[in-house]
């Protein structure tokens, strides 16, 4: 900085402070544009001023900080430890699961219908698995095997056959035709006849399908009574069909 004089230094500080008259200011600016050494000296002063401003700002905030911490001490922030955070996380996950499970259960509760429960337990009765000799089959049995359920009901009502088999197959045909009352009536008739004769012909089938008929007909108490009886009888042909889920679903339908 051989060419840089004390006057130059003073001039630059005055320029930095904004106290120069317009003429001198213009001369300084002209020199700043043309003289690298002059410009570097000014940049150095600017940086020094910046250091003062940074220090001033830091001191200003630090001064207010103390007062604010005193003010805020009345409501200290709690430190959340890792263990506490883990507990909070676990609770959040558990709460989310409860909401999820609750939503799922609510959905199941409101989307459940008698028809759905009926369908989950219903299976068409397959005559061929119960009987082998088709030559001796009654006209009602033949109609049933051919899935002519209307014909089965008509034949039975016309008195073509009044056997217990005909009674049962008519009940099944009525179920297939969604004629619940007729199905209930036939199954009950069959069970009563068995009780009277101390027989068991088609009795397990009639009890199970009667309970399904009750479900679809909205007679949930009757259905539950019958299904509990089946569940309690380990020798009942349909014992395994009566699950806790089925019983729960019927109870839900009843509560609704």
């Amino acid at each position, binding site marked *: 900085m051989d060419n840089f004089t004390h006057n130059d230094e003073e001039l630059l500080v005055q320029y930095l402070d904004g106290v120069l008259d317009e003429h001198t200011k213009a001369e300084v600016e002209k020199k700043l544009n043309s003289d690298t050494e002059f410009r570097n000296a000014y940049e150095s002063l600017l940086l*020094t001023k910046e250091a003062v401003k940074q220090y*001033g700002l830091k*001191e200003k905030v630090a001064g*207010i900080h103390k007062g*604010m911490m005193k003010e805020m001490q009345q409501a200290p922030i709690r430190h*959340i430890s890792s263990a506490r955070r883990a507990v909070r996380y676990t609770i959040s996950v558990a709460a989310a699961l409860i909401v999820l499970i609750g939503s799922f259960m609510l959905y199941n509760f409101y989307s459940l219908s008698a028809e759905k429960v009926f369908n989950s337990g219903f299976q068409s009765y397959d005559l061929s698995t119960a009987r082998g000799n088709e030559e001796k089959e009654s006209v009602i049995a033949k109609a049933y095997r051919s899935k002519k359920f209307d014909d089965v009901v008509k034949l039975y009502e016309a008195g073509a056959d009044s056997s217990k088999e005909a009674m049962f197959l008519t009940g099944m045909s009525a179920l297939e035709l969604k004629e619940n009352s007729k199905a209930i009536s036939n199954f009950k008739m069959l069970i009563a006849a068995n009780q009277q004769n101390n027989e068991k012909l088609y009795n397990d089938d009639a009890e199970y399908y009667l309970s399904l008929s009750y479900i679809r007909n909205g007679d949930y108490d009757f259905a539950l009574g019958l299904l509990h009886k089946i569940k309690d009888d380990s020798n009942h042909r349909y014992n395994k069909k009566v699950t806790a889920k089925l019983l729960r679903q019927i109870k839900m339908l009843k509560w609704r």
Partner: protein
Amino acid sequence: MEVIKNFPDSEIVGNIRSGERMDEIIKALYRMHFDSLCWHIMNNSGSREDAEDIFQEVVVSFIDLVQKDKFRGESSVKTFLFSLNRNLWLNELKRKGRALAREEKFEKGQERTEADFGHQLADREGKLAVLNVVERLGETCKKILLLFYYENLPMKDIVSATDFENEQVVRNKKYKCLKQLEQMLDANPILKQTLKNLLHG
């Protein structure tokens, strides 16, 4: 009793730019944002003391950036302060070698925001060194330079605030103090670079 008031962003930024009601604005920043930013640090391996230190730096950086027109209002003041807080704390964790993997992952996953003045924030040590140099100035020099360059007080007010006889004596003293500080800073070129970053961004 002082009325606690939430300032809208425009009022905060406007006052910082004009330098008016600075104490009131700084207090408002504390009341509105300290708790949440403190919570963030304390839940990311920091202590209450860390949170307080970082928040002071957040406020200083925010005011500095607003006054240099580097806050353009693309995000809210809250978001901007949160970003500054996060960046300053991550830099501090890295410095201490305590940055957790998830914090680094979090940082990488973040989009660059308006508050990403990385080269300024990362140079925390440089800035502290600059402040230490100013701190080493004599009390009188510090007082005169702060009153003139930070508080922007006219010479006659500085005369009243000091024991000097008249404005010319104060002016001469200020000149000497400024040159003294300049020489102290000149002794460390790294500090000059830090100041360049702070001044020019």
